[in-house]
């Protein structure tokens, strides 16, 4: 336990402590005020209450005054309490397929990591392709991206971090000074971020967005359908990202000799491929095939949970082993966000809000998509990307009906940019993990990240405008 003494003036510390209870008082007051004002024209009473609840949750999600999951619990309490949905409807929404899909995905990723398979794959690929300074950067960047196609980008960043840190220390790179050190760690973060938007498995965002889409509009997006639509964005970002990195942080070390040895030593430490690794790898492979070919018919959650059961039947993991990989907070956050999104939609509040905000001055679907994606990109730098989905999806769904846009396209326009947070360590755990190495400063990350953010927005809109109509997603 590390102890720090805060030497700031006591009055300031007291003030800072006081902000929290005062904030809650302020929230309560604003909430009471919103409930007491006359219902605006075109909005039902339930809709007004839903918006009041939404604004409270929005503030709490953005300010992080209480954990994201607890804000979701608050939403679950308030929606039936203020008559937006019935108690039965509210709790039934928690049984959404997206919630169970992400639970299954967490457990599967936990099994892969626990077996050591993911570490072995990482070390093998980095050892094989990382034979030059730039080659190693490419290997880390692409490996992080590819692994994030199949498992949570946060988990990938956490898994690769110690390996990259060991390489940086092995090369005696100076933290905060070495360009190559910055290159390695930003490659790791960006690889995870870009790869994380490629499939349903990279993070919690896409399943949540699809969950809200399904609850509100009855439509859904398939595993392959999503990847096919998003892949060009991923390819563009990978190419641009790599080139931006090597230009912004030119390699400042001579060609390496020792990295290969270091990686092969780490690989040797793992020993031969174990039965568990084979078995978990096979189950994971079959699961991905099933998601691709049977996802539409059986449902992604059913497949994920079946694989989980198989893992336990063959005793490949114990409950204790995977428990640390299951982020119950995210699962709660999911449930609450879906409930709130549905509440806004069913009460007519989402459509009303869309009409009053972007709808008031957006004239074409094209502008709507561009604005929604920009809003998602900006918001995701400051708040959790899952919170961005929870905030924007209800508004977006409202916009869809107003402008006659397919809600599926709206879902893409929010879910994809919400995952592309390149600038700040607080934006996403992958960035935070990289900055925690001390090799990358916040300024370095922001400098490169702003350029990537703009690129991401342009690339996304070009793909949406040019490529999506070809695959039947025109607007």
């Amino acid at each position, binding site marked *: *336990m590390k102890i*720090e003494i805060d030497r700031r003036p006591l009055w300031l510390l007291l003030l800072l402590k006081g902000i929290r209870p005062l904030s809650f008082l302020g929230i309560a007051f604003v909430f009471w005020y919103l409930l007491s004002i006359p219902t605006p024209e075109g909005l039902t009473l339930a809709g007004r209450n839903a918006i009041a609840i939404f604004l409270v949750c929005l503030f709490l999600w953005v300010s992080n005054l209480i954990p994201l999951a607890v804000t979701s619990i608050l939403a679950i309490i308030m929606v039936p309490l203020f008559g937006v949905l019935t108690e039965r409807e509210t709790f039934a929404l928690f049984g959404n397929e997206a919630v169970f899909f992400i639970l299954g995905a967490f457990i599967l990723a936990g099994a892969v990591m626990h077996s050591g398979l993911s570490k072995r794959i990482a070390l093998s690929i980095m050892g094989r392709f990382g034979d030059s300074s730039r080659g190693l950067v490419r290997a880390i960047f692409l490996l992080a991206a590819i692994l994030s196609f199949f498992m949570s980008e946060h988990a990938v960043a956490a898994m690769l971090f110690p390996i990259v840190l060991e390489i940086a220390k092995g090369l005696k790179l100076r933290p905060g000074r070495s360009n190559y050190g910055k290159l390695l760690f930003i490659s790791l973060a960006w690889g995870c971020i870009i790869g994380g938007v490629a499939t349903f498995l990279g993070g919690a965002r896409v399943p949540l967005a699809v969950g809200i889409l399904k609850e509100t509009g009855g439509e859904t997006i398939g595993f392959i359908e999503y990847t096919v639509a998003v892949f060009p964005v991923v390819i563009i970002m990978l190419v641009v990202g790599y080139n931006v990195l090597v230009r912004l942080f030119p390699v400042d070390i001579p060609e390496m000799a020792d990295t290969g040895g270091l990686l092969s030593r780490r690989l040797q430490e793992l020993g031969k491929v174990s039965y568990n690794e084979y078995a978990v790898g096979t189950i994971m492979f079959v699961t991905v095939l099933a998601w691709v070919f049977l996802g539409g018919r059986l449902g992604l959650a059913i497949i994920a949970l079946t694989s989980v059961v198989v893992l336990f039947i063959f005793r490949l993991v114990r409950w204790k082993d995977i428990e640390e990989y299951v982020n119950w907070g995210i699962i709660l956050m999911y449930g609450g966000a879906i409930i709130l999104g549905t509440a806004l939609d069913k009460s007519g509040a989402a459509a009303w809000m869309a009409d009053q905000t972007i709808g008031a001055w957006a004239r074409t679907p094209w502008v709507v998509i561009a604005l929604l994606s920009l809003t998602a990109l900006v918001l995701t730098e400051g708040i959790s990307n899952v919170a961005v989905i929870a905030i924007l999806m209800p508004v977006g769904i409202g916009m869809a009906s107003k402008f006659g846009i397919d809600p599926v396209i709206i879902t893409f326009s929010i879910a994809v940019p919400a995952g592309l947070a390149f600038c700040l360590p607080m934006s996403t755990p992958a960035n*935070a*993990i990289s900055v925690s190495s001390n090799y990358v400063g916040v300024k370095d990350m922001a400098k490169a990240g702003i350029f990537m953010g703009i690129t991401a927005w342009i690339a996304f809109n070009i793909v949406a405008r040019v490529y999506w109509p070809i695959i039947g997603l025109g607007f």
Partner: protein
Amino acid sequence: MKYQKGYLDNPTLLKIELMLNGIRVGKKALDKVMVEMAGTDEMVDGIDIVLSHKTKANVPYKEEFARKSSYLLKSRRDGFFITDGEGEVKVEIPPIPNFYKEKTTTGIPFSSIGDVHSGYVVITPSKRCDFFYSDVECRYCTANFDSNGGTESTYSVDEVLETVEAAHSEGKAEIIYLSIGFGKEEDGGIRFLKPYIKAIKKHFNALIAVEALPPIDNIWVDETYAIGADSVIYNLEIFDKELFELICPGRAKLIGRERYIDALRYAATVFPSGTVASHLIVGLEPPGYTIMGIDYLTDIGVIPILPIYRPSPGRTLRVDPLTTEVIAPVYAHLYRTVKKKGINMHWVRDISIVTTPLEGRFLIDGGRGFRSIIRDFYNTKVGLKTAWGLATLRRKLRVKESGESSGSSSS
């Protein structure tokens, strides 16, 4: 202010006089005091006497020099009086705590663990001091340490807790003063005292002062504050560098004067104003050096406490004690300097075994016009609770604990 004989009316001058010269105790008064002390395990070193303006003094009476004192404590029907042969002043003798006559469940007399001085309970959980073991002990030291460096005379946390509880039940444990001798550990003794401090804080709403050695690293100063110490005392004892090395060879060689000063300077940024203190013994160096020490320590936010040197039997060091006329201006300077530099002098108050900075006010125009509303408030039950509450709140605001161990950069 010019100091001259006839100190009975001035509590601070009288306190200095009595600490320097001791007091004779009249037979009747001694009988009364003895009745109080009957049943306690050991005789306390001096008699605690409450002079006018609630000034507390611990006065030697058993020593050789005390038998020659011109001051006499006498008892009449209407109370105790001190006389200098020409006049007399009424004083009080606070009752000896009842728990002195009791023992812990392990059979140790409470009086040998806890020593009550007015509102303080002084506890030294371990009698070990490695200065003695290495033959570099402070040359004036008469503390009750184990000169063999043994660890057998260590009181357990439970024994200390029982003592505090016994004192607490008599309303005498609002401030616990924990002290420790020198050990070779880098933490200055805080690792050893930690369970005692935490246990006392867990069970009692008490303020804790810690007298320890300066740790090698400042993280231990942070730790001292974080675990619950409300005040810290690193005793430099002597300000002059050469005399410090001569009289305190262990402190000089094994810790170093610079480290004392650095640790005190750092502690003053961690602890509240007026709670970081250091002893400068008056009489072991020329008064001019003590005054320089007062100026230096107060500049870095530390409150000097000035005990008065008296030669001790059994110690080779022999320095003729100074006189009240010489000492009094030093205390007056102490009061003026602490006040001028805005250091809170209410924490170090009502200590019978030293003259506190606040008591120096009686040396400035006899303390006329001075009303210690704050001191009086902090001596009430509500005041003590307030002090404890403010100290706890301050710690809650200031101390941040993170899960990372220091030096770790990984997530």
